[in-house]
């Protein structure tokens, strides 16, 4: 730990104000490692796009997400990266049951929550928190920030008004906002400040699972570091599991254990972080890594880009020997295991792509 300072000395560990001590309302704690914190099985989402006004309408189907299998182990941090519009946010929203999946299952700590009703879902809601991509719309314009951050406590009936308020201010401080922000409103903030409020709100309940959709995109590097460190600490201390959706590959690299890459609504590659960064197999993953901006202005160059269609066509072809596990059924590109914990969307030699 190099930074240290106030962020370290602050009330980082342990529940603030002891509000969360009586943590019994949630489902029973499950020993680490036994079941994944979050598991998505064959998740898919179709949108029906209607256009052409009210009367003459055309309906086209859009498969925003298809066949997503993901496992987020307890205490793990899984990075979800990918093309913009590839269905990352949609996947996240489905995992939260904020968007009804068209197919597939969602398991939280081993329990299938795909079909649970509001009441049955509520204890799980407490354990799974979210940072929305659009932090502006995610904050109620009529709420002060202290109210926003305290809201999760309020919803779950934890503490009284004053203690919640205090906890909220503490959390604002932990994400690097001065306590005086507690009485301000969302529209009075800069983009990065809003994002931090959203993060504070997601963390105040000390959830087991955090789904963070681009939580640091509007933060300067220093604040970003502070937030990333905070997440790491929480992960270490409390077995927080994080699904980290991001475009920022360097942050992904320094935070995540594993990375899944999405392209066109599907997972195209999934592997431990370092494997992705060092031995990616899928052409899209490679294109991504290639495109990371270089930090040295002298190395500026004119880039050439591969056409997306070309990338899509260029499905990796695996030799049978390369596949380390059972080959999934079906035709066309599908996720095949190669090497330890590494899966890539590919076809087998001899199959037509």
């Amino acid at each position: 730990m190099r930074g240290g300072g106030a962020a370290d000395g602050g009330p980082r560990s342990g529940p603030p104000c002891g509000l969360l001590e009586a943590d019994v309302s949630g489902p029973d704690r499950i020993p680490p490692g036994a079941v994944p914190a979050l598991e998505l099985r064959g998740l898919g989402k179709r949108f029906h796009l209607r256009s052409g006004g009210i009367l003459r309408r055309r309906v086209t189907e859009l498969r925003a997400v298809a066949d997503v299998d993901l496992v987020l182990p307890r205490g793990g941090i899984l990075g979800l990266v990918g093309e913009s519009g590839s269905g990352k946010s949609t996947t996240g929203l489905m995992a939260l049951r904020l968007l009804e999946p068209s197919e597939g299952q969602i398991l939280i700590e081993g329990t299938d929550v795909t079909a649970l009703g509001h009441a049955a879902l509520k204890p799980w809601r407490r354990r799974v928190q979210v940072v929305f991509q659009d932090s502006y719309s995610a904050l109620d314009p009529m709420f002060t920030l202290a109210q926003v951050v305290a809201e999760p406590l309020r919803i779950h009936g934890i503490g009284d008004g004053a203690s919640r308020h205090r906890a909220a201010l503490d959390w604002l401080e932990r994400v690097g906002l001065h306590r005086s922000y507690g009485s301000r409103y969302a529209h009075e903030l800069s983009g990065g400040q809003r994002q931090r409020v959203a993060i504070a709100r997601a963390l105040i309940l000390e959830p087991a699972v955090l789904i963070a959709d681009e939580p640091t995109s509007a933060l300067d590097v220093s604040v970003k570091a502070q937030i990333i460190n905070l997440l790491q600490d929480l992960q270490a201390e409390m077995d927080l599991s994080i699904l980290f959706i991001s475009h920022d590959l360097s942050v992904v690299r320094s935070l995540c254990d594993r990375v899944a890459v999405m392209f066109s609504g599907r997972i195209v590659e999934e592997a431990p972080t370092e494997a992705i960064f060092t031995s990616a197999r899928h052409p899209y993953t490679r294109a991504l890594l290639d495109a990371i901006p270089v930090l040295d202005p002298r190395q500026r160059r004119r880039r050439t880009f591969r056409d997306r269609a070309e990338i899509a066509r260029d499905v990796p072809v695996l030799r049978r020997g390369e596949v380390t596990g059972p080959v999934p059924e079906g035709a066309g590109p599908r996720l095949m295991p190669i090497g330890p914990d590494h899966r890539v969307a590919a076809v087998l030699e001899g199959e037509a792509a």
Partner: protein
Amino acid sequence: MTAEPNVAPAAAVLAKPAKRQRGPLWFAWRRFLANRAAVVGGSVLGIITLMAIFAPWITPAGPTAQAFLTDALAFPSAQHWMGVDDLGRDFFTRIVYGARVSLTIGFSAALFSVVIGIPLGAAAGFFGGRTDWVIMRVIEIFSVVPPLLAAMLLGALTGGGFWMIVAIAALFGWVQVCLLVRAQIKAFKEKEFVRAAQALGASPAYVIRVHLIPNSVSPIIIGFVLAIPLAMMLEASLSFLGVGVPPPTPSWGQMINNGMNFMYFYWHLAVFPTVALAVTVLATSLFGDGLRDALDPTMKAR
């Protein structure tokens, strides 16, 4: 890259005593005070209410006493600020006492319309589907049966009177508020912050109460403010049809109706109650506008 920073004297920053935190209502109050028109409206409303409450102390005679029969229809003078009506009653007294009836009718109807309209509208807008269906049918029924018919019927059945009018005005005032709230909530329920609350496990009741209704204040306030003159007018129309507040109890609507007969010559009998009604509603609507702006934190007073 250059030297990395060492541990800084950061504690100093944090050690600064935290400023007193103010609640959102305090800010709303400040915004309200900064709005001159709203403050004037509120004060006028307050004064009218106080006059209504303390009527016996500020008027020369009882509201029904025909103490000035020989002066009947006298024009405004120092002795009778608003003149004398056709039945020899001091008109200022009538206006002041009329405020009791009219304000009660106006405000109870408006209050009731909000109390009924908001939850129903919210439920319809939020849940949609079957709930919406049922509530919409109820709304349709209430919009179809005109208050006048209901009033005439209830009048015939119950013997009419003040409370019947309050009840009618209330029963029929809520439809508009309900529709407005329903529409607003339909539009807001898809917003991210609503989903954020849902993601936290908030119940529909919570979401509606804490997020959707506060974000619907402006149509609600407008609906509230509009319900007041509507109820007062209903009272006036019912008086016109003879089912109003029974005489001699003074009500502005009834006085306006009566004043109409005297409009050509004894203008004061029509003008004062109309002005009283207009001033009250104007004050209410300025007050409502101010309230609306004050409750909306994105609005900054000048």
